[in-house]
């Protein structure tokens, strides 16, 4: 994709409507390297930031793997990192993530929102997706919404195309695949699940 534009001109009006609703600016820290993904993330985040003054970007050489890390306006990490170029099915997820941390965020059921805020132990979530998977955005959007509501929840999204070694590491049988607290419970959740179902799974971990 290097050389081409990631965000088509035809998307700009719809994106402008979303950015106009942002209550606060957001920051994307792009951890880049010389890999294809690292270069693409650098270009994508720059293109996006050029569309609005509500998004600021910082470029940082990746210490480990490339990714786009999202921050609230007050400098707090939102706990959301994309190790994936948000193309294909995940473009909308990424815009939703920005909207969620800029505020007011996507409206969800009031009771579910309250419950999501009650989680007091750390939930480190890895989600493995493919950009052609139509089931993945449902899970990504739900998990990152929870992360935007609760500092104890963090989400990292991995594009399988760039991290194929994860298939063997986790004996991956399909996507979306969520791995919760890899170092402790190591709970796996497969398949399309709605916000309430995923919240129940997280609440189930003591």
């Amino acid at each position, binding site marked *: 994709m290097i050389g081409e534009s990631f965000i088509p001109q035809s998307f700009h009006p*719809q994106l402008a*409507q979303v950015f106009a609703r942002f209550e606060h600016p957001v920051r994307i820290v792009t951890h880049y390297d010389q890999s294809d993904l690292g270069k693409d993330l650098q270009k994508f985040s720059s293109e996006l930031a050029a569309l609005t003054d509500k998004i600021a970007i910082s470029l940082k050489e990746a210490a480990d793997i490339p990714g786009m890390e999202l921050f609230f306006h007050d400098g707090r990490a939102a706990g959301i990192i994309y190790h994936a170029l948000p193309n294909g099915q995940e473009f*909308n997820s990424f*815009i939703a993530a920005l909207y969620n941390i800029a505020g007011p965020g996507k409206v969800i059921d009031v009771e579910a929102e309250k419950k999501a805020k009650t989680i007091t132990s750390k939930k480190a979530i890895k989600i493995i997706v493919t950009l052609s998977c139509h089931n993945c955005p449902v899970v990504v959007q739900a998990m990152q919404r929870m992360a935007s509501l609760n500092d104890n929840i963090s989400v990292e999204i991995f594009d399988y195309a760039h991290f194929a070694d994860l298939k063997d590491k986790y004996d991956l049988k399909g996507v*979306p695949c969520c791995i919760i607290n890899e170092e402790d419970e190591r709970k796996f959740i*497969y398949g399309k*699940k709605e916000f309430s179902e995923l919240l129940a799974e997280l609440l189930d971990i003591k």
Partner: protein
Amino acid sequence: MSLINKEIADFSAQAFIKAAGAEKGKFKTITKADLLDKWSVLFFYPADFTFICPTELEDLANLYEKFQNIGCEIYSVSCDTHFVHKAWHENSTKVGRITYPMLADPTAALARDLDVYIEADGMAERGTFIINPKGRVAAYEVNAGNVGRNADELLRKVEALQFVAKHGDEVCPAKWQPGDETLKPSIDLVGLL
């Protein structure tokens, strides 16, 4: 014609079972009802007291606990009687390690039902059938002659079938090859605002 999704016929067969740690083996009647509501493998082999059979049956015995842990029962099946199974179990070190039920199919009712019966020989082909909890064939393979089977691969297949049965169309394959076209973004922000 493919046997996939074929419902196994009603049957009643005698099995020889020597459970782990048991002092003596016993005979038990197994029917179709025993196969329902759980995953099962019917593992046909030509005959007791042959050479290649004990090696693949032993291979399966070594992984039996893993099959049990995923809720899958193993049944080895030949057209011998349950008395012959008992004699073989007591006379072969390899077969003596088997703790799963050894089904007797002397009338070839099961072998015929699953189309692995060799009429001329009165024996079964090396057929492996994975039966889902509804009693239907979810996967199978039939090997010619003395080609042995791989219990690890069988375990992987059962796990994969269980996974697909549980998650259905909620998942997509984790598949991508270098050189695949990069996906274009699509925009659909309806419902976000």
